[in-house]
């Protein structure tokens, strides 16, 4: 199953609060779990990524928590700012059999609004 399920669909947080977005997957062949950020009118851009043998990865105010046994991972945005208002997509990478490359399957997206 090549699906990634993402929740919530939308999230409103006050400035300075913590934003949490959750994703779940079924396929144990996934080998990387990136998060993408998309601002209105723009294409998505890589925000942060984690390998399945790591339980947590932190970059600045952004942290991925990964629970391999539960097949779940989440994005935490600490001290959320109005500039973080965007759509966030979780994704999972799986290798292509016929090449050395991989492709992504994306979650449905979460529209985050951070109020000032």
């Amino acid at each position, binding site marked *: 199953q090549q699906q990634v399920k993402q929740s919530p669909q939308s999230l409103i947080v006050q400035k300075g609060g913590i934003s949490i977005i959750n994703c779940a997957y079924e396929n144990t062949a996934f080998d990387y779990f990136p998060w993408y950020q998309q601002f209105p009118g723009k294409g998505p851009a*890589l925000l942060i990524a984690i390998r399945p043998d790591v339980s947590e990865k932190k970059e600045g105010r952004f942290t991925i928590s990964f629970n391999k046994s539960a097949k779940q991972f989440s994005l935490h945005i600490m001290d959320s700012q109005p500039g973080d208002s965007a759509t966030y997509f979780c994704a999972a990478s799986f290798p292509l059999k016929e090449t050395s490359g991989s492709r992504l399957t994306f979650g449905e997206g979460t529209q985050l609004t951070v109020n000032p």
Partner: protein
Amino acid sequence: NAGVTQTPKFRILKIGQSMTLQCAQDMNHNYMYWYRQDPGMGLKLIYYSVGAGITDKGEVPNGYNVSRSTTEDFPLRLELAAPSQTSVYFCASSYPSGFTQYFGPGTRLTVL
């Protein structure tokens, strides 16, 4: 570097018309992708290419065609446009270890 460029930015088509969405990248990436984005549905892969002359279907290929004659260009062809193809289309490119994909700015297509 311009990165990934897409043309046009916006387009309105009538049902049954055809068009080609252009995509070009100047990062010498082997892998290129076409996605469509619909509200609440995330990004769905239409087609991808692992190099010039090599393409393969993604999750939602019906109604679309692609070709890849050069490393730089990956056009997406819509034949007999239908209202269900109203969407925002994104082109992306990457190195073979493809979890870092670089996206273009998108083409917003409306079929009436």
